[in-house]
């Protein structure tokens, strides 16, 4: 069952680590749903919630397109792919078409250049 056998912890510790991370992740996902289920969300926070989606999704998407691997790469092929995909997403609201368009530009330009 073990892989390369490099210096990781034993099976018990590994399972405890994984279980602990799982429990912590569940706790974060459940935290405010359970905290606010009776009293409701405070108005100040509720206003902020509408910006969670744009902020978090952009924080995942934009670095992946502009700075893959952590280094800024504004001339990389991911930039035109992202621009075209963003345009397609805006016009169609279709996840499938966005994905196809982005991949097509990325690999199409990659084959040409």
């Amino acid at each position, binding site marked *: 069952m*073990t892989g390369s056998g490099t210096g990781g912890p034993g099976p018990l510790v590994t399972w405890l680590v*994984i279980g602990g991370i799982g429990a912590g992740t569940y706790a974060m996902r459940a935290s405010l749903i359970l905290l606010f289920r009776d009293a409701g969300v405070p108005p100040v926070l509720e206003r902020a919630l509408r910006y969670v989606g744009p902020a978090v999704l952009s924080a995942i998407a934009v670095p992946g397109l502009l700075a893959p691997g952590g280094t800024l790469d504004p001339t990389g092929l991911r930039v035109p792919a992202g621009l075209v995909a963003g345009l397609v997403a805006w016009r169609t609201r279709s996840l499938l078409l966005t994905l196809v368009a982005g991949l097509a530009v990325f690999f199409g330009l990659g084959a040409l250049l």
Partner: protein
Amino acid sequence: MEARTLRPAGGPAGVRTTGDDVHRRAPGGTYVAQSAPSGLRARSTPSRESPLDTEVRPIRRAVLDTAPLVLGYLPFGLVLGATIQASSVSDLAGWATSLLIFAGASQLATIDLLDAGAAVAIVVLTALVINLRHVMYSAAMAPWFRDQPRAFQVVGPFLLVDPVYSLAIARFPSMPDARTRRLYYAALGALLLANWLAMTGAGIVLGNVLPEGVDLTIAIPLVFLALLVPMVADRPSLAAAGVGGLVTIAAGGLPLHLGLIVGALSGVAAGLLVDPEVRS
């Protein structure tokens, strides 16, 4: 229920609100409208509002939403599985992260750090910092969970992964009642979990099957771009997205993968700063 769509707008108040909601759900049909010639729309529109919709529609909607997501996540799932296979973590324990953690980026970090022999505290801390954004999802979902049964309030958060949050927050406002939202959320989450287990499992069994030199890691940012764009509807949300993305890049050097949460919180702050209602 059966007579709902036949009843004129002047019916009992309780029924009428449902009828209004059915009409407001029309934006969900944009997927259909894109693929069909405009001349066909008028005839097919009534059938999309059949009385069965409250039963079938949320689950069918979840199935349709899952399909492209699976395509986008497939390379990531396979790479994660291959990483587990090549690591010192046992295949079973590695695969179990897909069920117990159910968050790809933190699973990958967990496997990498365990394999590298990092201190246990560092492994746990890093994985949890990567998942801090889920507290923000929990806050955003809180208003929608208040009218759900207690059992669902406890079980539902287990499935609150990035795409479930993104799609639920986009689709919930046009769904007529708590039950429809619950069915959609549960079906979407369960389908994504099953697919995630299958994809990472396939990667563990098959190893590195993706072709050399074909960089498919762009698929994940494209998925999130597609989920992001419909949420950018005004100046504050544009500010939130712009600042969120750029600050995350600038904060890329922070330890423990703190850049993501720093960038995300900066984006929310930027949205609030530009928000005309907050400023006044």
